């Protein structure tokens, strides 16, 4: 976040705390991609992500007085989004999520970029266990350091590290096996 954005958000926060709807609108527009994407990658479901993101912003509106700075706002939003996602996932145990073992293999050849690979990866991430999923999303969507992830999830940094490593091993095994399968299946030229 650059200095101009920080100043703009400081101003918006002060005005929003005084219940100025336009200022709150600015805050929503600034952070909507972050919050929506976290929820989207968690559920791999657009409507659920939209609903969750709206709830996060409604909660923010109720707690505006407690937000001290744009940096605090960012941390707060990430924490609350994560918690809302976990709550939502626990309320709906029959979500149409793919188990990691049932995920369709990406049909990708070596060295070639598959337009479907990203989509398949997103599905695989969404099918990881909830705690591991949150770590992967914060690491690769938000590009956060392990210490920052540990602060958001309120867990020790070693736990973050091990969850991330295990998730990568699982994801890598799936992708590698998909690549091998695709190589064997390719017709000879």
């Amino acid at each position: 976040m650059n200095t101009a954005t920080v100043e703009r958000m400081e101003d918006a926060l002060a005005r929003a705390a005084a219940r100025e709807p336009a200022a709150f609108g600015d805050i929503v527009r600034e952070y909507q991609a972050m919050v929506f994407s976290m929820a989207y990658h968690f559920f791999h479901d657009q409507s659920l992500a939209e609903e969750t993101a709206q709830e996060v912003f409604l909660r923010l509106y109720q707690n505006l007085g407690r937000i001290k700075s744009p940096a605090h706002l960012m941390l707060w939003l990430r924490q609350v989004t994560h918690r809302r996602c976990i709550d939502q996932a626990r309320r709906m145990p029959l979500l149409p999520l793919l188990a990691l073992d049932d995920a369709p293999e990406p049909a990708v050849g070596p060295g070639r970029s598959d337009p479907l690979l990203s989509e398949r990866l997103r599905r695989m991430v969404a099918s990881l266990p909830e705690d591991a999923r949150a770590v992967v999303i914060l690491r690769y969507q938000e590009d956060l350091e392990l210490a920052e992830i540990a602060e958001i999830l309120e867990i020790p940094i070693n736990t973050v590290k091990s969850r991330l490593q295990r998730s990568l091993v699982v994801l890598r095994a799936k992708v590698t096996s998909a690549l091998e399968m695709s190589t064997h299946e390719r017709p000879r030229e």
Partner: protein
Amino acid sequence: MKDLENELRKALERREPPPGFAKQVLARIKPAATPTPGWRGALFAFFRWPRLGWTAALVAACLLVTLGAVHYRRAQQERAEGEAAKKQVIEALHLASRKLNVTWRKVQETDRRPPRT
């Protein structure tokens, strides 16, 4: 591993929510955005019709019930005192009657006795 991490970064890039998302959020906060009235506002709101009417009716009903209870209790007390007084009067009359009977008998005995010579 690095390739996978790069692929994950690409796959998990931020995406914008559907158009109109911010408007929907703002529309949902509007009903909650009504400012909470201060103590003066709350006081004025309390004394506004029809709440005042209902309150007055409730107070009047309470007053009537209290007055009725007090009146009933006082009447009960007066009746009890009257009953006690009546009992005392009757007892006094019985006593007086017994005394008069004794006196009357003595007078008659005196009359029947022959005069001394």
